[in-house]
């Protein structure tokens, strides 16, 4: 099946433009924009009815991005780190809604780690997409919990703590769908997004999405030391130089590809090989741990298990969404009241 061309209406009669949102206010070259574009593309290709989808997010540059896709879908830009609870309520009130939730590594790994873990545990049906850049973009470049141990950034200094690996966290936490993508690998990202949207439970999609504003400049990477007393780079924090999008060219499953980021640092992405069995939980965990030990990031569908019931199933939600119940079904009868009161 070949995907439709953008200006041609898809099966629900919408062109690709109908899946767009407001103009992005993120930095040029920010990985988050690339991801938003792929969401638009995937929604268009999948013939998604915009009104059947909701967009949710926390707070951060990443969490702004739902404003920039699916403008015909409802959405809720919630609080920092607390999107999962909004999701839980919204999707229990209306379990027919499909959800694309966008969060950041600070949003889900730092302030929101608890809610992230608990929503995974409940297996709420949603695509839980983390746009992971290792920093707090919107507050100007502090380390988030996913930053590597020992990473040096010109503004934030040296990160003393080991990174929170959100894929391992999801796995240990009981997620049935755990995948990692890279903002620059559009083809893989689309595949993962499609699979995630089809999953009946929490589909965790950790997407490495470089921040172009708050990574080091290559020239200054090693020379920077914290504080006014030392050298400062030519550009100040208020200047974001023009950047190109990072685009990863096709690489084969099983291959490891090293990407050079804007700051000259390198990222080793190892694409999961064909024939990898994503249904073996312990193997998946081992694979993540081993890659971490080698300083690599595994990309692809890392774990898949559709056997756990979703929260809506656990709660035995019926055909009519709770939010759509009419008054007759919401307010019991006067008789019912009398029957109950007779007991007191």
């Amino acid at each position, binding site marked *: 099946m070949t995907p439709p061309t953008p200006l041609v209406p898809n099966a629900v009669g919408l062109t690709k433009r109908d899946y767009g949102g407001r103009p992005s206010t993120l930095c040029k070259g920010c990985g988050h924009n690339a991801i938003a574009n792929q969401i638009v593309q995937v929604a268009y290709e999948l013939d998604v009815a*915009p009104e059947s989808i909701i967009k949710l997010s926390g707070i951060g540059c990443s969490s702004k991005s739902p404003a920039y896709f699916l403008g015909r879908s409802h959405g809720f830009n919630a609080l920092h780190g607390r999107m*999962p609870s909004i999701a839980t*309520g*919204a*999707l229990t009130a209306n379990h027919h809604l499909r959800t694309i939730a966008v969060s950041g590594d600070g949003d889900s790994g730092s302030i929101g780690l608890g809610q992230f873990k608990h929503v995974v545990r409940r297996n709420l049906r949603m695509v839980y997409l983390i746009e992971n850049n290792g920093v707090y973009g919107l507050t100007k470049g502090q380390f988030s919990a996913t930053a590597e141990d020992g990473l040096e950034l010109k503004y934030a200094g040296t990160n003393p703590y080991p990174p929170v690996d959100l894929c391992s966290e999801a796995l240990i936490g009981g997620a049935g769908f755990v995948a990692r993508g890279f903002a620059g690998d559009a083809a893989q990202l689309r595949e993962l997004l499609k699979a995630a949207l089809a999953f009946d439970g929490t589909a965790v999609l950790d997407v490495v999405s470089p921040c172009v504003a708050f990574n080091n400049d290559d020239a200054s990477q090693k020379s920077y030391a914290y504080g006014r007393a030392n050298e400062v780079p030519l550009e100040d924090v208020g200047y974001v130089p023009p950047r190109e999008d990072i685009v990863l060219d096709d690489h084969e499953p099983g291959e490891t590809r090293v990407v050079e980021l804007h700051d000259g640092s390198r990222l080793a992405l190892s694409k999961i090989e064909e024939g990898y069995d994503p249904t073996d939980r312990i193997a998946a965990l081992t694979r993540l741990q081993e890659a971490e030990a080698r300083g690599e990031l595994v990309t692809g569908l890392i774990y898949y298990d559709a056997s756990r019931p979703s929260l809506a199933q656990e709660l035995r939600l019926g055909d009519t969404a*709770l939010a759509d119940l009419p008054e007759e*079904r919401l*307010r019991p009868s006067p008789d019912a009241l009398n029957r109950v009161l007779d007991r007191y």
Partner: protein
Amino acid sequence: MPESPPAPHGDAPASAARVSDFSLVVSTANGTGSQTANLTLLRSIFLMGVPVHGKNVFPSNIQGLPTWFHIRASRDGWVARQDPELLVAFNPATLHEDVDSLPPGGVVIRNADLRGAPERDDLVTYDLPVKELMDGVDAAPKLKGYLANMTYLGAIGWLLGLPLDVLETALEQQFGGRRKLVDANLPVVERGWRHADAHWTKADPFRVERMDATRDLMLITGNDAAALGATFGGATFAAWYPITPSTSLVDALREHLTELRTDADGTPTWSVVQAEDELAAIGMVLGAGWAGARAMTATSGPGLSLMAEFTGLGYFAEVPAVIWDVQRVGPSTGLPTRTSQGDLAFAHGLGHGDAKHPVLLPATVEECFEFGWKAFDVAEAAQTPVFVLTDLDLGMNTWMAERFAYPDTPMNRGKVLRGDAIPPDYGRYHDVDGDGIAPRTLPGDPNADGAYFARGTGHDADAVYSERPEHWRANTERLARKYDTIRTLVPRPDVDRVDGATIGVIAYGSTLHAIHEARAALAADGTPFSLLRLKALPIDDAVRAFVEAHDATVVVEMNRDGQLADLLRADLPDLAPKLRSVAHLDGLPFSAAQIRTWLTPHLVPAKGEAA
């Protein structure tokens, strides 16, 4: 099968008889299971047609610490806390202080196995040899401790003149009609009764006599009533995190929903989710409210604090939500099992920036029911979080109540546009009616024209992010307008003016009961006062009129700082000099005696009478 019940004694000293008018306390340790005996005793008095009320004063612990169950029987219908005159002394740890605290003429029913009660000549003491009585009881050994409480139930029944068949009926009701349970307990009750009958000589004036003052009344807790009200309010979603004293509200909600809102095929038309904490609980409620469900949570002080950020979001993104705060004593973890009205100001202004929330203030279990459904109407009509502030006393204690009135208005789901009714130029925050409340749409609506991105950030009338000063001002001024609209949506105060009274009292919530009692006594003493019972914030003009009409108005409340008094002074600055504050908090419900003491300095004889 129990034998036919023996007749109660009939030889109380007639002279000083205290008929159906006394206070009693059962002193036990936590975890001993005395609650069933206590509630059965309460229910027995109720079955005698005598107005009665019970207050459980229990520790924040599961086993072994002192717990006191107060029962007040009052032929006049008073239900406020009153210092007890009769004591069931079953707790060795507090035996001394319990006995010491009795007034002269008081009565002790003492577990005779306890050693070392203080000797007081001015009390009447009855001994109950619990161990001995339990010796012959045929029950699993681990249940014996629990059953032992039934001995005092029987004995005090004898003492107060409660017929055994009344005790049996009460037991049956207490066990929800499950005869097996009655059969296991009743023999022990009878042992107590018979022991008293055989060994005790009635030497005190306290007894119960049949009346007809409880017909058609119920016995129910405020939390249960609130849950039932919410159920009839169409609650479809609740998220919560356990915390005393709000837990039983959600427990009851689940029960009522299970019974009343399950489809024939077993499908529930509701969900209750136990969240991982209160931040998540209120987040879930807002998510559900945004999606169109009637959603609520219940919490207490610490949980309220944790809900601050999300409540501010609810205010600003304009999402309906109902938050029950069953108040306990704060600040901080404070006294989790004691009552207070300490969260009023904090809840009202919860969240940074200029946030103001409606607060409903039920005073009775009837109002817990009523506000249980009304709160949803206010929340959806005003598209905003609504607090209902009750307290441990009202929420967890057992109160008499009229049968609850079925909701007299259909649900007010507020301004919701659906499908074709959504105009092509729809914008979420367009104040089309001028009342500050803009029509909303719901996610999942097939008409995509209604789509918007809800947010806690500054926005224009189309919900689009905006930092423009004029957008901020327009939006917050509309919110202020909405706040004025809310004044007309919330329950109005109850005003009871007294001719000739120059002093008014304003109160709210569960202190009402002590105030009513004190008021009757003070009026009888020639110092009447008018009473305005506030049922909600924000206030309406009735409060202004009330304060204007009196020389001085005293605001009575159960917190340290006089929070309502402060709020009223801010709201009615021109009248502030006329507002006085009476505020106290120690964890115990007010007694009428306390109210009298505190109010007396403020009162003046009614006009026309000599000073």
